[in-house]
């Protein structure tokens, strides 16, 4: 097999491994096609470290006498050091890692080889399809329909084969509208609010260009969305100036004269490279142990990461305000409609929709709004914060989303069924995974590569019923209302769980969390299942001691 050709030295003995806040270990290092394996002893109880090569963002090598040191910087922000005796071995290992961690071909990636015994490849892939979502959402049936106009991905290569559109707009109109939108991303339904039937639509920018082109069908499509009600809002994720400038390069915005029932609001959001650089600067600041409080704060500020979090949550709040408070439908888009657009529409749904706050609901939301909506994961997550490679299309949009969700969780610690651990897991999986979920850039690419036939789905394995306890929030209490987060800068915080994940600080937090769990468990045991909402309902035959005693007393 050709992958193994990259491996010149597969095994090295007497390697010293250094991890932050752990004593150094000596053992054997082994490079395989997809993994880096370190094992400290040969006996049974040995400690092992297994790292997906894809998780490795940067490799730095340094010679010290006859031996070499390799520093491995992972996409999940862990930094490791390996001291390898023998210069040649060291260089071999480093070059193998470099080559194997940056494979481009999807089918050579590990998810195509991952075959755990407890999972089978047969059966449906993913949690829910557009059709299923439509079937389950009764409030859509009246005015909305599923269109398969994109079944061969020719109308919009980055959309799924099925999308939800207004019932009265036929497929021909959709095709024309798609031609008028960048990348063919015509307005489709993202969410329909359960309280008032108002919707969140998303799309890419209209291609009005310098001479203010119009598209009748696009206008009709949006007209059909608001269906007689007075007003809809277009939340344009660019500043008014940027939107104007976009016309020079063929893009544009929905002008008042053509879309008379839509009011445009501009909100500036940084995108692409700028956000990626923010991540790099932030991680650099977090890893620099030397600085004073002043320098830390100035570096934190300089990274602008929290500013991105701030704007994303603010704009999501604005969308929610339009939908929930004012009762208007909203169209969200930026330029391409594959990054900030999804970020804002996802956050708005999390705030609005109680169904999206359960584990399965949240994963379904991610599946709809990120996987099916065509966020180009392969491009965006090719590199993380450490890579020296020149930036191309990398952008941590998804990480930014997870950070925003974490901020919401911090402000509403009882409202989400999932825990921080799930967010951390997702942050890691998006960059390097055993599963096929985050492979490729769109459903079309996934089909072409045979992802659904040959890999396992992460969301399926994460969702209930056999979800691991660590991914559940012990304090979860379902709640029907919108959860409006505060967006004062004072209310937002650095996501220490992610960015300071590999510090000694994390351990104390883990212990505190365990303590919370044990209190909750004790409470469930004592108070019985009827008082705790998220334990699977048990039957009458498992009585709490309390009920037992009550029994006895009534008899007397």
């Amino acid at each position: 097999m050709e992958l193994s050709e990259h491996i010149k030295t597969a095994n090295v003995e007497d390697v010293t491994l250094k991890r932050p806040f752990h004593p150094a270990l000596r053992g054997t290092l082994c490079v395989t096609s997809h993994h880096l394996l370190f094992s400290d002893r040969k006996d049974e109880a040995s400690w092992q470290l297994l790292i997906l090569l894809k998780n490795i963002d940067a490799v730095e090598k340094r010679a010290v006498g006859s031996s070499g040191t390799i520093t491995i910087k992972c996409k999940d922000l862990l930094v490791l050091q390996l001291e390898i005796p023998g210069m040649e071995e060291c260089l071999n290992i480093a070059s193998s890692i470099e080559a194997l961690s940056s494979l481009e071909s999807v089918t050579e990636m590990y998810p195509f080889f991952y075959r755990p015994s407890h999972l089978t490849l047969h059966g449906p892939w993913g949690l829910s399809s557009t059709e299923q979502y439509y079937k389950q959402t009764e409030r859509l049936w009246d005015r909305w329909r599923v269109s398969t106009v994109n079944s061969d991905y020719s109308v919009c290569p980055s959309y799924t084969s099925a999308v939800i559109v207004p019932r009265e707009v036929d497929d021909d109109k959709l095709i024309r509208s798609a031609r008028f939108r960048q990348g063919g991303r015509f307005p489709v339904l993202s969410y329909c609010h359960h309280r008032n039937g108002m919707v969140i639509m998303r799309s890419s920018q209209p291609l009005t260009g310098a001479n203010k082109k119009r598209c009748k069908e696009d206008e009709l499509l949006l007209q059909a969305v608001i269906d007689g009600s007075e007003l809809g809002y277009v939340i344009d994720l660019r500043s008014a100036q940027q939107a104007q400038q976009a016309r020079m390069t063929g893009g544009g915005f929905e002008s008042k004269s053509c879309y008379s029932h839509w009011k445009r609001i501009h909100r500036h959001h940084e995108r692409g490279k700028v956000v990626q650089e923010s991540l790099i600067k932030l991680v650099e600041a977090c890893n620099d142990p030397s600085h004073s409080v002043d320098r830390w704060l100035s570096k934190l500020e300089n990274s602008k990461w929290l500013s991105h979090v701030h704007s994303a949550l603010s704009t999501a709040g604005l969308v929610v305000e339009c939908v929930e408070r004012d009762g208007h439908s909203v169209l969200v888009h930026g330029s391409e409609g594959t990054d900030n657009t999804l970020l804002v529409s996802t956050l708005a749904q999390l705030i609005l929709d109680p169904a999206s706050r359960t584990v399965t609901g949240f994963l379904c939301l991610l599946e709809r709004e990120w996987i099916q909506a065509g966020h180009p994961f392969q491009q965006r997550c090719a590199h993380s914060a450490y890579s020296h490679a020149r930036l191309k299309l990398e952008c941590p949009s998804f990480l930014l989303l997870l950070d925003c969700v974490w901020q919401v969780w911090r402000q509403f610690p009882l409202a989400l069924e999932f825990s921080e651990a799930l967010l951390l897991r997702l942050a890691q999986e998006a960059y390097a995974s055993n599963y096929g979920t985050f492979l490729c850039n769109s459903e079309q690419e996934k089909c072409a590569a045979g992802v659904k036939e040959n890999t396992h789905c992460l969301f399926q394995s994460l969702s209930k019923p056999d979800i691991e306890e660590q991914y559940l929030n012990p304090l979860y209490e379902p709640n029907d209302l919108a959860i409006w987060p505060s967006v004062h800068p004072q209310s937002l915080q650095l996501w220490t769980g992610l960015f300071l994940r590999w510090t000694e600080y994390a351990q104390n937090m883990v212990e505190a969390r365990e303590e919370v769990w044990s209190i909750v468990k004790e409470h469930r045991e004592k108070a019985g299942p009827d008082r705790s909402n998220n334990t699977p309902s048990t039957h009458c035959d498992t009585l709490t001691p309390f009920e037992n005693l009550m029994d006895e007393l009534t008899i007397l």
Partner: protein
Amino acid sequence: MEHIRTPKCVSKYVVEQVKLLDRFSNKSVTGTLHLTATHLIFVESNSTSAQEIWILHHHIASVEKLSLTTSGCPLLIQCRNFRVVHFVIPRERDCHDIYSSLLRLLRPVSYDELYAFSYNPKQNDQQREEGWQLIDLAAEFERMGVPCDQWQLTDVNREYKVCETYPRDLYVPITASKPIIVGSSKFRSKGRFPVLTYFYQEKKAAVCRCSQPLSGFSARCLEDEHMLQAISKSNHNSRYIYVMDTRPKLNALANRAAGKGYENEDNYSNIRFQFVGIENIHVMRGSLQKLLEVMGTRSLSMTDYLVGLENSGWLRHIKAIMDAAIFLARAVTVEGASVLVHCSDGWDRTAQVCALGSLLMDPYYRTIKGFMVLIEKDWISFGHKFADRCDQLDPDPKEVSPIFTQFLECVWQLTEQFPQAFEFSEWFLIQIHEHVHSCQFGNFLGNSQRQREDLQLKERTYSLWAHLLSEKQNYLNPVYSPSFAESHPVLEPSTQAYHFKFWRNMYHQYDRSMHPRQSILKHVLTLKESNRELEGTVQALKTKLQKFGVSTSPLKPQTPPRERSLPPRPQSLILGAPLLSRKEVQQEEDEEVIGEEAREDAPASTGGERTVEGNSATENGYGELKESFGSKNEPSVVTLEFGVARMTC
């Protein structure tokens, strides 16, 4: 409100139709403003939510009349507990009356005018006395293992003759004779000679405190050198002692010109001298002012927030104090060396460092009772000038400084790093802060023990500690783990810059819109409390059963009770339910009382207040979250200010 005593000078003043503006949004509510002898009270007119705000006059730091607007005359009041209220009073005359009355009320001229002397929590003399006896410093030194073969109690200051600002009981090395003590005290600023404040039994190492020596450029004092020698000799584990001068070197140098200064290592044998670099009270005052200015800005951007936080220097100062405390704790616990800490007068930075250092070394100080003892020892008894620093009386603005606030914040920063190490939660710290400024209890009045005795505080006022202990439930940290203390007797905090965070719940405690909408702390506390109650109920029922002669041990869920009559009872869940819900109702009623008073800060009980102050949040249209989050079970941590209110009525 009739039960509020109307004093001779100011009769109760009522102004209707006053608007209260939210400081971060355009929201406002209308209500009535009452001015009483002790409080400024705002009662919202809206009958459904009707929040009340009680502001103790002692809490008010400044009152400002802003320029007239079309809707009335704005009055801006800033409080020492970081509350900022902005009223608009329809008629200018009313505004002026309130303004000038407040100005008068804000400046009590004698201690007798302070609230503590009129405050009466309906306790009898015996209860009051018991409250004052809760903390016993002699017992505390005994707990540390003092007196012992190396340290003794000296009566040299029994009459406050050697040092006015020290307590009567002081502990010194046994080899330090009276002439040495007296000689040393003459060589120290304000007579504050080196004395023991904490004894680390395990290594027999001592933490001592004093003020700066009057060394000038070359003066020396043999007795003082002897004194340090004695401290050094009392610890056989180490050949040297550390002398920590907590000031920046420059400040210490400047002091030499005024005949003060620092220890010359050539004159004192076996000392290791160390500057720490904590800034003085004026810098700290300025820093807090800058911080509050930034945080009070409307529609603050993330960039301005972080830049402002940095420019205020506040967290840098917090870190400097923490660094010093860590240095102290390491010297004592790792090297086993004794340490002498001083600054200029030895009552500000010295108190911060000694107290925080002891807290790092001794798990006892991380309990509720222990923390009280610590404050009583290092702050109150050793003469931190609370009256001056907290502006209690006839203020000299140059003496005011948030030194004690910084100490509380350092402790908070530690609770964030070690969530299981402290028996108390941040609400305890915030409540203490509240009362340091409220002048409602006697503990913090005055500048020294001597002054407190002169004021007969123990006879005429009540102790805060008793009050706090009676509400202990509200201040518990639900994830506190005594076993953590066993495995981590000495805390070793990280001093990485990113661990120093802005303490929102302190500096924005009254800006509800900024707070998390649900609190893990409250929720877990409630669960824990409920666990305890259920356990109690089970026990009570067991006892009852035993009285009936039924053995409870083999209660197996599956075994149906034998003598059950027909028809079979409905589901056991339902059977259990009435009692459970009765309990809940009971709880609700209990909480109700607190809820009444806590209304202001208990977000869940007033649905309309639960809003997002977003960029776009304009009106109060966000009232979606009505009674959603188990508000009824929330403990009354919110009684911060209403502790005041409740007591008055």
